[in-house]
């Protein structure tokens, strides 16, 4: 299939506009539709609108990899909160740094009542990366540049601006280049996954996928905090900050305490409305929770999206009601 993405000098890439395709997967496939801006949104987005709107930013868990348009948490919210419109700006494979750039490029100054920033917990690794691995046409691994920030003192400085268009192969990638390889111990994880022992090994080793949250002074967390605070300072609307847990947290093989503490502190510091869906997800029994991700893919299933939507509604419902009753 022709690629779903096009180069974007600011974000790195985004969906090709006006796509309407079924993406085949090992589980069958899913329907993907994009709007004129190149986001998986059944509606077009204009800056000015008389409609009540919620704008949602995030990565593939928000864009809805492996799940059809109409079945993602943003779609459930859209249906539940109608006539309020929920606009999905999710971009697969991206980090919170790119989400802030998306907001800046497409939604800054736009009419909206609420902005939702969904941070998949492992985004903390993506924001310190300058490249993301991707599979090339010939099956080889190539690396796609992304924009990224560095903290110089307390100042965020943007790099890869514009984002280099050229993809880089493993041989030509500079040794010191920062690459998000999807977690710690990439080669070992690959082997364990191949052997189908991922769950067992993670449980036995008490694998903690994101130690960057353990210490508030960790450089990665400091960068995440700075990006979110900077972004928050530019958004006039209420902002809901939703950390999306990893499946290890949902299935209770990893301890979520550290990341929850960090986001909790940040919410208090930056006037975010924190919505942490983990407790709602954990209220389901283990078998149901396993059904929140695919058999061979960590992304949210339609059931997972439904659960996130139901949880998020508890925050958004009153927030919208409050906004309406404001003079």
């Amino acid at each position: 299939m022709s690629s779903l993405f096009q180069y974007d000098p600011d974000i790195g890439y985004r969906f090709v506009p006006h796509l309407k395709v079924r993406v085949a997967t090992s589980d069958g496939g899913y329907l993907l539709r994009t709007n004129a801006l190149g986001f998986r949104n059944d509606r077009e987005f204009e800056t000015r609108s008389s409609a009540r709107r919620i704008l949602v930013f995030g990565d593939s868990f928000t864009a809805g990899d492996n799940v059809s348009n109409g079945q993602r948490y943003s779609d459930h919210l859209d249906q539940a909160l109608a006539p309020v419109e929920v606009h999905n700006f999710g971009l697969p494979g991206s980090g919170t740094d790119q989400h802030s750039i998306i907001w800046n490029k497409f939604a800054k100054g736009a009419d909206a009542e609420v902005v939702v920033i969904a941070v998949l917990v492992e985004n903390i690794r993506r924001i310190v990366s300058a490249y993301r691995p991707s599979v090339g046409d010939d099956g080889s691994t190539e690396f796609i540049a992304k924009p990224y920030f560095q903290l110089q003192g307390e100042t965020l400085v943007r790099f890869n601006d514009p984002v280099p268009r050229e993809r880089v192969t493993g041989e030509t990638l500079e040794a010191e280049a920062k690459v998000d390889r999807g977690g710690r111990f990439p080669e070992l994880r690959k082997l364990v996954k191949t052997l189908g022992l991922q769950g067992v090994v993670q449980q036995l080793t008490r694998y903690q996928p994101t130690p960057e949250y353990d210490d508030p002074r960790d450089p990665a967390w400091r960068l995440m905090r700075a990006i979110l605070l900077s972004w928050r300072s530019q958004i006039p609307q209420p902002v809901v900050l939703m950390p999306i847990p990893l499946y290890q947290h949902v299935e209770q093989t990893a301890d979520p305490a550290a990341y929850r503490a960090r986001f909790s502190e940040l919410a208090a510091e930056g006037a975010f409305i924190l919505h942490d869906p983990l407790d709602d997800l954990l209220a389901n029994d283990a078998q149901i929770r396993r059904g929140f991700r695919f058999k061979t893919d960590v992304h949210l299933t339609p059931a997972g999206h439904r659960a996130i939507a139901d949880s998020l509604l508890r925050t958004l419902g009153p927030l919208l009601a409050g906004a309406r009753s404001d003079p």
Partner: protein
Amino acid sequence: MSEPYILGVSGLYHDSAAALISGAEIVAAAQEERFTRKKHDRRFPANAINYCLSEAFIEPSQLDIVAYYDNPALTLDRALRNFAAVAPRGREPFKAAMRSILDEKFRIEKSFEAALGEARPLWYVDHHLSHAASAFYPSPFEEAAILTVDGVGEHATLTIGHGKGRDIELLREIRYPHSLGLLYSAITQYCGFKVNSGEYKLMGLAPYGEPRFARAMLDHLIHVKDDGSFALDLSYFAFMDEAVMSGPKLHALFGAPPRTAESRIDLFHMDIAASVQQVTEIIMLKLAAEAARLTGSRNLTMAGGVALNCVANGKILRSGLVDGFWIQPAAGDAGGALGAALYAAHMGLELPRQVPANGRDAQRGSYLGPAYSSAQVRAFLDREGYAYTHIPDRAERSAAVAKALDAGKVVGLLSGRMEFGPRSLGARSILADPRGAQMQSKVNLKVKYRESFRPFAPAVLHDRVGDYFELEGESPYMLLVAPVREDIRQPFDMADFRKGVADMIPAVNKVRSTLPAITHVDYSARVQTVHPDDQPDFHAILAAFDALTGCPVLVNTSFNVRGEPIVNTPEDAYRCFMRTEIETLVLEDCILEKAEQPVSEDDDAWKQEFELD
């Protein structure tokens, strides 16, 4: 209530495909080979199914019926009977047939489930009923005779039927092993070409020869009655018990062993080709007459692999036997996918059938495959850093393409939805100026890397066809061969060719008309008429070429090299462009020039990628 969605599927023999209809309207259809890049791919068409769902933008749960174009139980019965007739010989072909039937066809429900992610109601439609449905339902006729002719279905190899409204009734059949399709394939293989793909070459070779073996064929190989029915003398054939199709007795009859693939083609093979072509035409004309007699209809519709024999089709058209004539563009097994779906809709669900009011057919130009938007094309070109000029205005773009063609350039064109069926009709085409004497050789040898003798088809503005060809009405699917008009012909004596020990290049390069590149050695041409409603971009290019040169005709050949499936995506098209001497590439509204592209790192190793046909 919304219209039911029906998915039709063919495959697990050759030319796997999927088609989707909504109610009785054709939504999408595509062959699996276009996605997998394996010509005549026989595997379960998971990619084509995915495309069909994509085109309709529906979930598998929205499919009301899945229809498969074959009845595996009857196919098993035929295989068992065949083995019983030849045992203990024929064990290897029997084992292969059993593997296919038991491991694949009987487990096809599992394949559907894997492709769709869930089980859907599965209907089986007999092979020739599928062909018949593909011929009649999309045709522009309220009622018509139906003729289906191929190698073999479950038992039938040929049927004559009658279609009226939404009803189809099969009236007569000829059963395996007596098969016109298998006769043609056996001779195809005897002449060194591949079965189920080389038949076109044999047909293209025929005009170079003389039918001096036709009498022997009719006396020995196939006994034909006045009503068109026939019986093969099986002692000349080996297909029942061996992997090869012709037997020693047939070789003795012609006095020569089978030709080895890629060896020299000489006059003998041309004469064999001419002979089997003549035999085929004799039988097809008799069958057309019998179909008219049986049904009382002056309309004829056709499908099955033999219906792709456009020379025979042209003779039926000019015979006066029919007033209305329509052939399913995907006449081979791929079209069975569409037929199975349509049969399920009309005969299964009893959905009404409406013939288009404009007098045209319901096949929509057969542009039923995937399209790629300008945004997708530009995303690809930008990502790869390929140089291009973006010309959104159709008139401006067409003028630029016409100018390139007039300058003698060969142009690759990817525009709109891909064709369903084996012919390129301007959506995935290679175009050239037909006026040049060397163009046929150039495109055959330097672009397509195929045999020099193979003719090219002309595409002509639909309202100008009479200026160049002896053809009345439309031929939108390139399924009719017609003579070029006498007033544009130039003298050409085939006797010189035969005296010249059949060196084809001089004959091919000899000017036979004012449009030498599309005039075959017998002054025939496989015509495509182009209507603006069907393919506006292609029509605009023809019109622009006409405006520039006064010639409303272009060479139109499939966008591929020998052995490669026709290109599907912009990526496929670019790859083919860079590997051949195509000089200009049109990808939707972007034009690329070879000279401006980065140097390709491909060497000739890619030629091993595609198995020669």
